[in-house]
């Protein structure tokens, strides 16, 4: 608590910072777990105050609000600050340590699972419906330190079709209220690219539902059911195509 910016948690919780200070403090929050925890504790005071004065609105209001949102498009997802995300990913890459085993056999599995969609927006095409595109390349999808367990994972990527498929064998299951989520990370940050849970034997073959361009990174995290607009879990797999 020696640095002045840590002191801003209380005015931040009260929304009593001017715009400049608020933005600075929010940037700081991304890097400071102490302040994140502090903010949440102080916000409990605000929440308690609101609960103590809670008043049910007229019951007609709900129907009115639900009708209003029908005509109200949601804001497009504003990406999490790209530098933070990329830094995080870079850190993960540099600290990755995995042991390579039976590489050749696994590569064969990955190659068999290759599937590229003609276009991402064509919902009729699944990974099983398409055969490897002429320009498809297959790379390993390495697990990061955050992933524990034994797994075979790969990416098949077609630059011409800006499409990619990930494949897993032996992927760990997730709790019932969680899901794996795919991300395509470019200079603007992560874009959600689909949810999945592995099937029998931890197998999954999933077409990413966002365009993948050369130089993009494909990442996998675990998120609450329904997915997240921005990654909240650690990156468990990542590969740059």
């Amino acid at each position, binding site marked *: 608590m020696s640095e002045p910016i840590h*002191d801003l948690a209380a005015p931040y919780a009260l929304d009593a910072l001017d715009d400049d200070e608020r933005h600075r403090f929010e940037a700081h929050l991304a890097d400071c777990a102490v302040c994140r925890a502090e903010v949440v504790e102080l916000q409990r005071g605000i929440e308690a105050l609101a609960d103590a004065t809670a008043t049910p609105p007229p019951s007609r209001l709900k129907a009115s609000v639900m009708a209003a949102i029908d005509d109200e498009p949601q804001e497009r997802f504003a990406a999490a600050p790209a530098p933070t995300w990329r830094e995080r990913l870079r850190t993960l890459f540099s600290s990755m340590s995995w042991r390579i085993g039976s590489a050749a056999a696994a590569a064969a599995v990955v190659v068999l699972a290759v599937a590229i969609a003609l276009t991402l927006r064509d919902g009729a095409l699944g990974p099983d419906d398409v055969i490897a595109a002429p320009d498809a390349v297959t790379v390993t999808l390495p697990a990061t330190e955050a*992933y524990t367990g034994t797994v075979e994972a790969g990416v098949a990527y077609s630059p011409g079709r800006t499409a990619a498929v990930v494949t897993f064998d032996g992927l760990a299951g997730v*709790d019932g209220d969680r899901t794996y989520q795919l991300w395509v990370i470019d200079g603007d940050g992560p874009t959600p690219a689909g949810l999945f849970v592995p099937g029998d034997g931890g197998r999954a073959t999933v077409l990413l539902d966002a365009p993948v361009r050369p130089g993009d990174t494909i990442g996998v995290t675990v998120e609450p059911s329904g997915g997240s607009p921005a990654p909240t879990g650690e990156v468990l797999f990542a590969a740059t195509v």
Partner: protein
Amino acid sequence: MSITIAMPRTLGVRTRTTVNRFMPHTDLHTELLTATGTGDRDAFARLYDLVAGPVFGTIRGILRDPSMAEEVTQEVLVEVWRTAPRFDPERGSAKAWILTMARRRAIDRVRSEQSHRDRTESVGAASRDPERDTTYDAVERAAEHAELRRALDGLTDLQRDAIERAYLEGKTYREVAEELDTPLGTVKTRMRDGLLRLRDTLGAPS
């Protein structure tokens, strides 16, 4: 290639650790707001049931006119729907995010009504019509808003003064320090101590 990391922990355990680190306040509000951000109307309907009362109460604490408070409540809840994709759990709790939106909108409305009234008065149009007075000054607030009064009762006078100026009037802590002729650090400390006391005296055990 095969990636073999032989460790005894399950992914589930590891995942909970991760979630705690990145989302310290993972709760139903956060889950529903996050789902709302993906366009899930059912999640939004459930979120509405959780927050409509606290949001309406917060707005009523700032705006006098009940129909105006209802109108602002609707605006806030539609704004929650519209901007949910922007919610970032690293920046605080989902519920506080929504409540902040509610206070901002209510305070904005007070200010625009106030400036409208000031303009009206400055041309000498009429004496002030108390039925149309939508703002609370500190004394009226203390006398009339019994619930808020009780909720803030546990604070010291100094804490209450600092928090009210920010919470109900939308002042920044710098403005509060200036108004009270008090050092910035002191104001921040009063705000912090006051919020923690509200958490402890009013909050449900978590």
